[in-house]
């Protein structure tokens, strides 16, 4: 009769680099599946190109009748086109991309002016390195007034525009807020200035507000 093996004792025929080979099956199965999910899916995603090109006549649904006209030819990577679903104005998320430039729209609830909303956005994100421009006013074709601020940094050019999506009869303070963010590579903003200006002019609040 032999004594019971001490804890952690691995018989020599089961050892590999000091590890117990009998534990390899569950451990390696987990590692393979985890790595497939972790790196396989992002690799597959990177291999699939975008095919959601904005066509002439497409209109973005910003909730409760509010709309925007996206630039033709850009890729719609997130968001809902009018007539294809329902959107809440306080949770709108739109992402448009073209050649390294992006336009994102984010709706949220906020009590206060567009200027205060932009302050809140900047407070929440701290002060990134770069040079901020002064704030200016943006007026859309429908009469919606927003507050815009541009900045430039080694990472690229940026423009943030804050709106309160209140119609003519609505309460501006309580209306949902919309943040439009434009990001481009360094020195590329000028090339897109007209496209961005046209896009901003096309933002319209819901008729009911």
């Amino acid at each position: 009769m032999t004594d019971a093996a001490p804890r952690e004792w691995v018989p020599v025929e089961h050892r590999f680099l000091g590890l117990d080979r009998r534990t390899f099956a569950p451990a390696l199965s987990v590692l393979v599946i985890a790595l497939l999910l972790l790196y396989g899916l992002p690799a597959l995603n990177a291999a699939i190109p975008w095919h959601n090109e904005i066509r002439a006549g497409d209109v973005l649904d910003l909730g409760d009748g509010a709309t925007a006209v996206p630039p033709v030819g850009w890729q719609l990577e997130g968001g809902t086109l009018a007539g294809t679903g329902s959107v809440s104005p306080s949770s709108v998320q739109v992402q448009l991309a073209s050649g390294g430039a992006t336009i994102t729209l984010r709706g949220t609830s906020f009590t206060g002016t567009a200027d205060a909303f932009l302050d809140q956005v900047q407070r929440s994100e701290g002060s990134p390195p770069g040079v901020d421009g002064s704030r200016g006013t943006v007026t859309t074709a429908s009469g919606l007034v927003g507050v815009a601020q541009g900045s430039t940094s080694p990472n690229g050019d940026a423009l943030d525009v804050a709106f309160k999506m209140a119609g003519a009869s609505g309460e501006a303070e309580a209306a949902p807020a919309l943040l439009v963010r434009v990001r481009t590579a360094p020195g590329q903003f000028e090339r897109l200035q007209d496209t961005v200006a046209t896009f901003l002019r096309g933002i319209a609040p819901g008729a009911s507000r």
Partner: protein
Amino acid sequence: MTTTSEVKTAQLAAIEQSGWGQPFRLVQPRNLAFWVYLLGVGGGALAVLRYFGPGAHFYSPALTGGVLLFGLYLVPWLLLLRHQNRYTAQPAALLATAFVWGGLAAPFWIALPANNALLEIWTKVGGTAFAANWSAGLTAPINEEFGKALGLVLLIGLAPRLVRGAYDGFIIGAFIGLGFQVFEDVLYVYNGAAQTFGADQITSSFQMFLIRGAAGIVSHALFSAIFCAGLMWVLGRTPGERNVPRGVLTMLTAMVFHFAWDDMGGLSGGNALLAVVLPFVIAIVELVTLFYVARHASRQERIWVRQLLQPESDAGVIDPALLAAVSGLGKDRKAFRKLVHSRSRARHLLDAAADLARELARAQGSETSEVAHARAELLRLRGGR
């Protein structure tokens, strides 16, 4: 007729097969599963720091509120799951190991990057309208259910003798799911506050607590309990328990529930009435399925407990009604409560019988002072009727 030696042999076989009484140690440097576990939990912890770190100061009211509220929310859940950890109960250290995998590795190491990728793939393949309705339900049930279940597979590697039956999968899955749920809830609180750029963080965290807390009753803990019980049926680590079709069907059921919960908007198709009714219907179906799976998963465990205590029953330490209750289902325990005419006395007797079973398992069926004490306690309680 069954002889005493046959009963004793069956008792020893039950102890051997169930692995009950075996100690659990997480730190096993010679076990590769230990290193993979460390990699997953370490990767998850790093991802947490990267995710919450930059905004932690500004969003501290929301984060503090979320951690406190969901920390309190955890208490009744732990009490409930502790109560369900019956029959050949799993040690607390093993369940804590499962919880940590569910809280850190599954959501932050695996699900966060995998979900982002798959959500974008669905958007590219089906367009943004399709993605808005269906992408969440076609993503999370795959990445999250498998991500959580990987913790169970690692625990099989770390404690092969302890993790044997489908009920082990059920309980361990519930703890992994609970960890996932609570950590994900805190993530949602943070995201909710970030959605409003930090305006009125306390209100937003409280709103998120109410929404996620209510939905959490039939969420990750339930999905994973069902999924992991199914996985154990597929793996069949107990003689006679392997049933691949049942296991796969059970795993798919958990994934369908997860899909239905995540794509409630798409399933209701814009119908306001359906959108209100559907969550309740799905919750009822989920709970009925949960009890059905628990009942079937516990079958082998109940047989083990019966075999373990049969010698004590033959010796007159446990009467047949108590044996039936301690190795039975809810209806057996209810019948026992009616028999003894006292809820507290029935509970004490059941706990004492479970103590004796546990001490017998720890002693590997031999006589020790602990076994003698547990038996004396049970006899004391029985004499006090």
